[in-house]
């Protein structure tokens, strides 16, 4: 509003003056002249071109260290006075020459007319077609002519500088990289005015003022003359596709306008197969310590354990924070058997080979934080534990047993979420021994001699010992006298020695060995069982001979069979 008012006032004054001159000329002065009698004078006031009182200059100055970015304005300002009081305009030309009040050969910009003594300004929107350095020539022009040229001086004087956008025509990457290795990101980019920088961001978003990624940065490189590239030195471990967003910016913080700028790109981290260190495989007893010990006669003993640590360069986590290692198996065998002889279902043998492939073997494997915790996607280790049962006749390997030169080993194998598997790795250092397990079944727990007359022998009875542990057996035999008032035995008694035993049938009472109240070892030599459902057995044959004159009665007694290890074959 003040400007408009000022203009109006100026115009009014100008019109008043002109009007006054006309009236004066046609009236008062003409009368005076007439009165002065006919002496005439004339003058023609010529046009005076305006002249700069403040030389044209850029505001702000556009210099070679602080150029004007392409697409931004260069603003020129100047102040001039016109002796005629004419309005004037600022003319910024590309060459040093004007024709009339226009540039002879190209105009950067031209202001509107302003009053004499006022500041005029004009702006030029810089173009990609501009040169880096652009000379300019300033003129102050009224409606009839222009002043002599002025290029200003210093930083704000001619020339102005146009900084061009960097080009960004292509982006390339390693394609795929192994976990925790490096990945080179390369941009095809040039800049005619200075250096360029490449920022590879993890998420979309870039701050030109910083300059830098608004989120995390994969890598960056600055001050490159062209084709900048940077290396992601430690790509993540989890396999999968990773996004990145490239940004090119020049040294004057002017970003590239390419469609590639900030556009999502991806590189892949390869899946690698897991591995298992042999020394990490521990074959453990049901209580976690000591030799493997069987605890169920004629049956499976559950809850033996194999623990191991799976190493995976992809870490223990997937890219979505799931579990990298998804399954594992073990084969457990006595070391007399090779790994290749114990990895198929048909190779199952309860004495010495328990392959995972055998469907009836109750093997359960799962990741175990107790063995080794998974501590995120930088942790390459994770513990696994498998529980499994062993049959009662699995071969012992401790000192004194036939297989003492062997031990029990576990072969472990792990598979990741992409079905890549480790090799089948045998335990070495921490294999284990299987201990002796003495157990037996008796098919019957009574000897019913029936009715036998004095001085007569009973029919032959037998006790069959079945080996239901993993060792061969002998037996200790002892007994009590038979009596009618057992266990007091203060009445009629048949001495225990009247019971004779043989280890082969049909030998008769007289060829048998008399039973005693004292324990006697009998070399039963029952072999170790080798077939689960068909326990090895040895039989003892019994005959009772009733003494002459033995009173009639119902006699009761008790024999004791103590199983013992067949020390000749299974050590003490």
């Amino acid at each position, binding site marked *: 509003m003040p400007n408009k008012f000022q203009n109006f006032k100026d115009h009014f004054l100008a019109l008043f003056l002109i009007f006054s001159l006309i009236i004066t000329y046609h009236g008062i002065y003409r009368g005076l002249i007439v009165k002065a009698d006919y002496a005439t004078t004339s003058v023609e006031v010529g046009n005076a071109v305006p002249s700069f009182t403040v030389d044209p200059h850029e505001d702000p100055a556009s210099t070679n260290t602080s150029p004007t970015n392409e697409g931004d304005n260069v603003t020129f300002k100047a102040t001039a006075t016109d002796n005629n009081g004419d309005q004037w305009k600022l003319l910024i030309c590309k060459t040093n020459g004007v024709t009339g009040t226009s540039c002879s050969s190209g105009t950067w910009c031209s202001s509107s007319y302003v009053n004499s003594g006022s500041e005029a300004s004009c702006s030029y929107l810089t173009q990609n077609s501009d040169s880096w350095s652009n000379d300019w020539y300033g003129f102050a022009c009224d409606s009839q002519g222009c002043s002599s040229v002025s290029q200003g001086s210093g930083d704000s004087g001619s020339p102005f500088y146009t900084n061009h956008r960097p080009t960004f025509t292509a982006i390339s990457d390693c394609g795929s990289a192994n976990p*925790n290795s490096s990945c080179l990101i390369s941009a095809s980019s040039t800049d005619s005015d200075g250096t360029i920088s490449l920022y590879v961001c993890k998420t979309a978003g870039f701050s030109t003022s910083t300059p830098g990624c608004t989120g995390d940065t994969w890598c960056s490189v600055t001050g490159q003359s062209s084709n900048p590239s940077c290396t992601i030195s430690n790509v993540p471990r989890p396999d999968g596709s990773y996004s990145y967003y490239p940004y090119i910016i020049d040294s004057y913080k002017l970003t590239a306008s390419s469609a590639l700028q900030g556009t999502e790109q991806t590189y892949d981290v390869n899946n690698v197969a897991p591995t298992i*260190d*042999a*020394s990490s495989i*521990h074959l453990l007893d049901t209580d976690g*310590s*000591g030799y493997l*010990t069987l*605890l*169920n*006669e*004629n*049956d499976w003993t559950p809850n033996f354990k194999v623990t191991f*640590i799976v*190493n995976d360069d992809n870490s223990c986590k997937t890219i979505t924070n799931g579990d990298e290692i998804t399954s594992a198996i073990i084969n457990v065998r006595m070391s007399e058997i090779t790994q290749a002889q114990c990895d198929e279902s048909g190779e199952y043998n309860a004495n010495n080979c328990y392959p995972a492939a055998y469907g009836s073997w109750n093997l359960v494997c799962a990741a175990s934080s107790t*063995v*080794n915790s998974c*501590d995120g996607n*930088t*942790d*390459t*280790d994770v513990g696994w534990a498998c529980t499994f049962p062993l049959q009662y006749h699995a071969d012992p390997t401790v000192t004194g047993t036939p297989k003492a030169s062997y031990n029990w080993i576990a072969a472990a194998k792990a598979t990741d979420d992409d079905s890549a598997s480790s090799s089948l790795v045998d335990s070495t*250092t*921490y294999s284990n021994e299987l201990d*002796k*397990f*003495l*157990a*037996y*079944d*008796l*098919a019957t*727990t*009574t*000897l*019913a*001699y029936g009715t036998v007359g004095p001085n007569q022998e009973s029919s032959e009875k037998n*006790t069959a010992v079945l080996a*239901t*542990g993993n*060792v061969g057996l002998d037996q*200790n035999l002892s*007994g009590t006298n038979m009596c009618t008032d*057992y*266990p007091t035995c203060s009445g009629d008694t048949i001495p225990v020695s009247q*019971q004779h035993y043989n280890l082969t049938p049909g030998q008769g009472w007289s060829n048998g060995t008399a039973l005693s109240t004292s*324990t006697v070892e009998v070399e039963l030599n029952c072999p170790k069982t080798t077939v689960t459902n068909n326990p090895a057995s040895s039989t003892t044959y019994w005959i*009772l001979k009733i003494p002459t004159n033995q009173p009639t009665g*119902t*006699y*009761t*007694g*008790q*024999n*004791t*069979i103590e*199983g*013992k*290890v067949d020390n000749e074959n299974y050590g*003490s």
Partner: protein
Amino acid sequence: MSCKNLLLILFAFIFLVFTKPAEAGFGISPPYVSNDNLARGSVYEKKITLVRGNPDEDLKAELTVNVPGANDWITINRGLEFILPKGEKQVPIIVRVQVPKDAPLGDYKGNIRIKTSSLEALQKGTVSIALGAQIDVDLKVTNAKIFDFIVRGFRFLSSEEGFVKWIFHFPTKITAEIQLENLGNINCKPTKVSLEVYDENKTHLIKELNAQKMTTVKPFETDSLKAIFLSDLKAGTYYIHYKIYKNQEIAQGGEGDLHLSIVPHGTILGYQGATIFDLPFSEKLIILALIVTVLTISGFGLLKSLKKISREK
């Protein structure tokens, strides 16, 4: 074939299939107590599990110790007579051998016999059979102090990278858990535990570390002990060749290769890393100097106050 005959065959089949003779099973695991390294005054314990196949009634177990010269040393945690409860397939007992301080040196061999019998009256007119088993005993008393062990397991616990706080450099703390079976008759720990630390691909040796702290395992016991290693290793994966020494030699089970993963500081929730006691010596000195300075100043202040109070009085 008539319906009547078919019915008879069916009954016969059912009888054969579903009726079993009276079977009884008994066992012991393991069937021995053996120790070659007993020192005078030492105590050795062995767990033996009594096993029954069909525990459908309570049974009385009677034990007889027959180890000439050593009967008095051997006790059973459940006593010489106890009940094997109905329904319990496994009943563990602890055989405890307490060697007198004046025990003659030598071998002691014998057995412990176990006899089981029913608590109910025997079937009249028959000879019942009681089941039992024999535990072989083989002991040797020696006057030598025996340092012997087998390494039964080795693993690394989770490790975090060390960190810097103020001016203090807390090192990376690596903890190895060693499962050790002490075969000797004195407390033991490995003579030395060392780690050769290689890069992940085992292409070059980065450094060697020796355990700085270790706990011990009691005689004849199998237990885990922890070995602590302090280093400046950064987060990453390393290949470790470990050696566990018994005197100058590597112990049985005392050598192997494992990967070690060290995660960045702050990754593991509740992680117990290095403390001020694990700082380098020079930094411990700084802390000590600070403490001394503070105490001195406090002491002077206290002295001054006391003097002032006494003057006022």
